[in-house]
């Protein structure tokens, strides 16, 4: 491969192999005034890939609410930053690693965790919590078990070693993910608000430092792979998956945070997708400068690497930073203390160009602005999803066996205990985890070290709703996130999102994308709950079959006082159960329909955003007034599921009642939104009901806590332990190989 400024033989085939369309290639020729060489073409290819350029999504992402009085930094940096008072800031983001995880589940998932952590500590934050949102294919699909096994081990293997607790997440199984699993990882970090680091490489003549692992040939064109569909030969892409080294990540975190405590760093950027290319170009573009790099100085794992390979490598655990002139010895000292490879590989320039020298010749000399700012920005045609018919309770014949119905709902793959997963994650390291997956609660709760405040964190999305109605599903994903934070007593502050969709070049997929974004945005605005960071993953398709639209939402809320936390734990014998929110018995797109009747039809439950907010604000007020002993949000599986989950964790049964005219299936299993189940003692019942009435919040007594059964006057009556046993055993049984049918 001849790396010189002379044009290589760039044939139309070579252009196409780089995922660049003929029209895009014309722009490159125009901006350069000549044909690119192979290195330059590779650089354009990754920078203009869907993954890096957001060329299909950018114009739609711009609609999001992105600011509020707590937002310090919205989208556009490595992660979003919010103010949590007292000079503390939370920095967080969620990101997909879908394509690599399907090809190589352990390393794909592990490096997904590593990448999202780097996005957070790059900005000066110590990572304090990890979460994930995982979607796998049908449980009995031949690939599912090995994918689950590898992904979970990879997530655990990375986070456990680095020493950041993995505290929460969600997992779905559905045939729609048979050919494309989703692995979305979220990291939350803590920084001082006055010591946040950004990527703008301001100033000319400043030294550029490379630190971390050596550059190898792994992950070349990973960003391009993540920007195309899969076909039957996708496993041949295994060499494009990177390999993770959590030990080096741990060293990088400690070393970067140590150097960040000084004034040595002007700008810093991790080398994620598109590695050295993307990090150097983004820093230069934001700083309004040029960059000149000497590739001979890049620490290399292998001999004979070309400029093309070095610029496109996605080797993990690498950082690029611009150092304050004169502080070079300090930077070397810190990184060498931690045993990391470090090299000064270039300088910032006033040319506005990316110039690369290798082996004594200039191998790339291109203007930076077109790479970053002139990236294609498509207005792809989009067709809205056809609305579905609304299913009334009377349309669905009642079951004759409610015990069986309850069992089927609670052992639906999405509903069962995920203990098998979260016991493989260290949830307690750092000693500030106050609640995590293990309680099955609505949100994980992490104390801010050494203070009396905490953050609540959660990941949410209901893909079957989004598939049925992208707009309502998008609203619901944000609403459920807001509700889950509210249910533990937090003030919801902001979200990150991870938007997973199929091929945007198909109008119906683009219609799903636009619908979800518009719905999410409406909910964000209704709750003053902005998007501060995020990621888009398109082309999640195999042989033309797309995943269900899956806009995963990662929410962060603030709990100002540790004594004002409530969770679904804590219901006491004799407590009264009160349902907050309206119930019409919405069975369309419900777990009940799917688990009992193998039906996935019907419009999903609409979200009345005003009622959602009114109900949630009231529940938070009850928590802060110490009026409740336990709280749980209602979502999948409705009232019955919420009561079971509360009972499982408090190891105490419940007897439910139906004070309405609704048939039992609609009352107990309907998935109407904006609802909470609260447990309270008898002294608080009347004040709760009366105040609710005054606020226009629907509040009804729906049962009592106690005993060892889950019972309903007009429905089921099962042993708590027996049901729990079935709920707990589903996943271990699946993973041990013996498939049990209900």
């Amino acid at each position, binding site marked *: 491969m001849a790396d010189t400024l002379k044009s290589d033989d760039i044939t139309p085939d070579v252009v196409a192999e780089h995922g660049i369309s003929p029209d895009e290639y014309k722009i490159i020729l125009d901006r350069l005034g000549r044909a690119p060489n192979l290195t330059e073409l590779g650089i354009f290819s990754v920078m203009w890939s869907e993954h890096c350029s957001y060329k299909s999504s950018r114009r739609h992402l711009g609609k999001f609410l992105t600011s509020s009085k707590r937002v310090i930094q919205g989208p556009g940096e490595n992660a979003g930053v919010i103010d949590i008072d007292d000079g503390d800031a939370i920095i967080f983001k969620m990101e997909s690693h879908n394509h690599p995880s399907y090809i190589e589940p352990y390393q794909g998932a592990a490096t997904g965790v590593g990448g999202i952590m780097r996005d957070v500590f790059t900005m000066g934050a110590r990572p304090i919590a990890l979460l994930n949102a995982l979607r796998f294919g049908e449980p009995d699909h031949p690939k599912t078990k090995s994918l689950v096994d590898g992904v979970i081990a990879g997530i655990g293997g990375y986070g*456990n070693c680095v020493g950041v607790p993995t505290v929460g997440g969600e997992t779905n199984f559905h045939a729609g993910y048979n050919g494309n699993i989703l692995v979305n990882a979220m990291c939350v970090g803590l920084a001082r608000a006055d010591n946040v680091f950004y990527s703008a490489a301001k100033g000319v003549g400043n030294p550029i430092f490379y630190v971390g692992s050596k550059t190898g040939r792994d992950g070349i064109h990973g960003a391009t792979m993540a920007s195309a569909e899969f076909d039957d030969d996708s496993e041949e892409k295994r060499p494009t998956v990177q390999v993770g080294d959590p030990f080096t990540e741990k060293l990088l975190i400690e070393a970067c945070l140590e150097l960040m405590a000084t004034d040595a760093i002007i700008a810093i950027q991790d080398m994620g997708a598109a590695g050295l290319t993307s990090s150097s170009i983004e820093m230069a573009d934001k700083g309004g400068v040029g960059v000149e790099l000497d590739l001979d100085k890049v620490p290399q794992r292998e001999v004979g690497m070309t400029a093309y390979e070095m610029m496109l490598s996605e080797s993990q655990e690498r950082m690029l930073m611009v150092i304050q002139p004169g502080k070079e010895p300090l930077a070397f000292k810190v990184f060498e203390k931690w045993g990391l490879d470090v090299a000064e590989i270039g300088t910032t320039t006033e040319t506005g160009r990316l110039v690369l020298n290798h082996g004594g010749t200039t191998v790339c000399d291109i203007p930076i602005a077109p790479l970053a700012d002139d990236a294609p920005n498509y207005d792809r045609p989009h067709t809205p999803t056809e609305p579905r018919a609304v299913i009334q309770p009377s349309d669905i014949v009642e079951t004759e066996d409610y015990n069986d119905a309850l069992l089927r709902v609670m052992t639906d793959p999405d509903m069962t205990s995920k203990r098998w997963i979260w016991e493989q994650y260290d*949830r*307690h390291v750092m*000693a500030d985890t106050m609640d995590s997956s293990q309680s099955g609660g609505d949100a994980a709760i992490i104390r801010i070290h050494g203070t009396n405040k905490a953050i609540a964190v959660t990941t949410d999305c209901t893909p079957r709703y989004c598939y049925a109605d992208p707009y309502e599903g998008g609203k619901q994903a944000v609403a459920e996130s807001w509700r889950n934070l509210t249910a533990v007593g937090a003030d919801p502050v902001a979200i990150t999102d991870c938007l997973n969709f199929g091929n945007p070049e198909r109008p119906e997929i683009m219609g799903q994308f636009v619908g979800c974004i518009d719905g999410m945005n409406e909910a964000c605005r209704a709750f003053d709950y902005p998007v501060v960071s995020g990621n888009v993953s398109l082309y999640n398709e195999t042989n033309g079959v797309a995943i269900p639209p899956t806009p995963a939402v990662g929410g962060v809320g603030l709990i100002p006082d540790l004594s004002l936390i409530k969770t679904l734990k804590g219901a006491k014998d004799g407590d009264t159960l009160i349902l907050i929110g309206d119930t019409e018995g919405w069975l369309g797109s419900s777990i009940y329909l799917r688990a009992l009747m193998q039906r996935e039809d019907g419009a999903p439950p609409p979200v009345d955003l005003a009622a959602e907010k009114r109900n949630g604000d009231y529940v938070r007020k009850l928590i802060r007034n110490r009026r409740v002993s336990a709280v749980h949000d209602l979502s999948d599986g409705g009232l019955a599921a919420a009561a079971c989950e509360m009972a499982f964790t408090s190891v105490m049964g419940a007897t439910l009642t139906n004070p309405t005219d609704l048939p039992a299936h609609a009352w107990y299993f309907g998935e109407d939104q904006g609802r909470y189940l609260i447990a309270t003692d008898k002294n608080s019942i009347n004040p709760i009901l009366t105040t609710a009435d005054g606020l226009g919040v629907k509040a009804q007594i729906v049962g009592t806590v106690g005993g060892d059964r889950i019972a309903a006057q007009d429905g089921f009556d099962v042993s708590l332990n027996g049901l729990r046993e079935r709920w707990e055993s589903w996943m271990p049984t699946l993973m041990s190989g013996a498939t049990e049918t209900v």
Partner: protein
Amino acid sequence: MQTAVIVFPASNCDRDAAVALEAHTGKAPHMIWHKDTSIPDDVRLVIVPGGFSYGDYLRSGAIASQSPVIKDLKQKAEAGLTVLGICNGFQVLTEAGMLPGALMRNAGQKFVCKVSRLRLANAQTRFTKLYDAKDDIDIPVAHHDGNYFADDDTLRRLEGNGQVVFRYVDNPNGSRNDIAGIVNQAGNVLGMMPHPERAVDALHGGTDGNNLFKSILGSM
């Protein structure tokens, strides 16, 4: 009382250990970098904390056991210094020959993080004398390599000498004789897989670990 925590490059429970020590002693521990060659003379208790020391890509704790600071720790422990190895710290102490046996991959092959119920096998040690032998305690475990193994002769000797300190009620990793923690023959070095430093706070992990720290301080 002055305490210390050893810090390897990928220790990750070093801060947790320091927080627990400071809560009990009122004094911040020395944080001793793995490349240091000596432990200050005023130190009365050293914790070798949990984590992955050098990444543990070889055998857990194997490289750490060869680090400069462990050489000095070994000498001082032979002279009677109190040492507590937790999780990776336990692995380091066995690799360094300061405790018998080895920690192998969990029998289930998976990393396991859960609250483990422990039985006091010996409530007479300097680490456990404030516990009531009748009462089981709940201490979290979080490890991939916690499956304690020793040959039959060693096990017999450990059991005969009362060197087994903690046993799992519900063995999470396949350890022989349900062993969760052991002391050396002299009784001044304890290694345990469960994390007592994660059980010193009612808001996080419970408080069943407190008596371990109180026992140590009480015996100084």
